[in-house]
């Protein structure tokens, strides 16, 4: 096989993300669901800084289990050692709430061990994220787009490891969220 350092791998997904609170991140339903691109699952945890991890906090609302990576959030399994080097998105925001400030799309390493019990608490690491443009006041429905590139070992992921995509809203209060959005997110990986 001729894969080598610098080769690029891309993957993308269309999605619907309906933010209902700023205190949680959302991810997709399971594939057999009638709307598998709807990010209807969530946990009351926040996307951590790039290179940092988020873990199940022991509460019902803050539950994060290992099966939720491959079953829900996963979008690609690294076929070789690689690094997240780019993210891009394009969305339609229906009608952000007054005070909504932005949304964040995160690429997460959904960590687990082979044959681990599916209901064990999970640890997910942020490989990269991209923030939307900043909103202010009570903005109307609008379209948004963006792209960013990365060059950090924080984005490194080994062959066979799972990457998931999650979304989180931010605002001046918990209810001041970005609401519903339909769009597309693309992830770019570089072979290491």
């Amino acid at each position: 096989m001729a894969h080598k350092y610098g080769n690029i791998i891309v993957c993308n997904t269309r999605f619907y993300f309906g933010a209902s609170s700023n205190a949680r991140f959302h991810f997709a339903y399971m594939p057999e669901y009638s709307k598998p691109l709807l990010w209807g699952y969530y946990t009351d945890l926040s996307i951590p800084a790039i290179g940092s991890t988020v873990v199940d906090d022991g509460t019902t609302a803050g539950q994060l289990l290992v099966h939720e990576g491959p079953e829900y959030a996963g979008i690609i399994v690294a076929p070789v050692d690689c690094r997240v080097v780019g993210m891009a998105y394009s969305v339609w925001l229906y009608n952000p709430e007054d005070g909504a400030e932005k949304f964040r799309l995160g690429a997460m390493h959904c960590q687990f061990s082979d044959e681990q019990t599916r209901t064990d608490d999970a640890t997910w690491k942020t490989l990269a994220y991209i923030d939307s443009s900043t909103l202010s006041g009570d903005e109307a429905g609008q379209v948004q787009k963006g792209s960013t590139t990365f060059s950090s070992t924080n984005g490194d992921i080994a062959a066979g490891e799972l990457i998931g995509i999650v979304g989180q809203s931010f605002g001046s209060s918990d209810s001041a969220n970005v609401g519903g959005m339909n769009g597309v997110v693309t992830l770019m990986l570089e072979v290491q």
Partner: protein
Amino acid sequence: MSYRNKTIMTWTTKFDTNLAAITNVYFGVPADNTNFLDWDQYVVGDVPAAGSTLSPAGAGTSSLLKWESPANMAQFVAPINCRLVAISYALDMSNPSSGCTHIRFAAMSDSDFSDEDSRTENATWTSLGYVDSTAMTGDPAGQVQKGSAQFSSSNGDVNAGDCVGAVLEAFGAGAGAVSGIITMTFEGS
């Protein structure tokens, strides 16, 4: 990061649609639709030549609004500046109408889309390139088809952050129910 000129990126989607009428450009539906691979949205018009635009500003199915770019048409967002270099497809037509001559598969981008534009503004889509299916004559029976085309033109250029999607159009007469898969390939520039 060492991505560079000539880096290849592909995306693929399956689809199902009913190309019931000509002079309609068909495309996808929002991701929260139960049948999100059923491309039953359309706008009245024709796929323009590569490098030209589609911007109907009428009403109803004679208009394209900006929200339809990320929500309906888009399948991919360019992570870096890149160029469309290939389209390939495979399809099953269950029973094309008599007179249907071919189907056109086009890559479209919304390069007119600016951050925070109102979702109800009129949209302008640019044709990056297209491939036509094998020509048919008379009253074609149900059949399968496949094909590919390569491109090397600045008409296929898109900027990082631009959304890109696929659209379909039947010619001659409606192509009827069509199920298939489209792959589009881009080259970093």
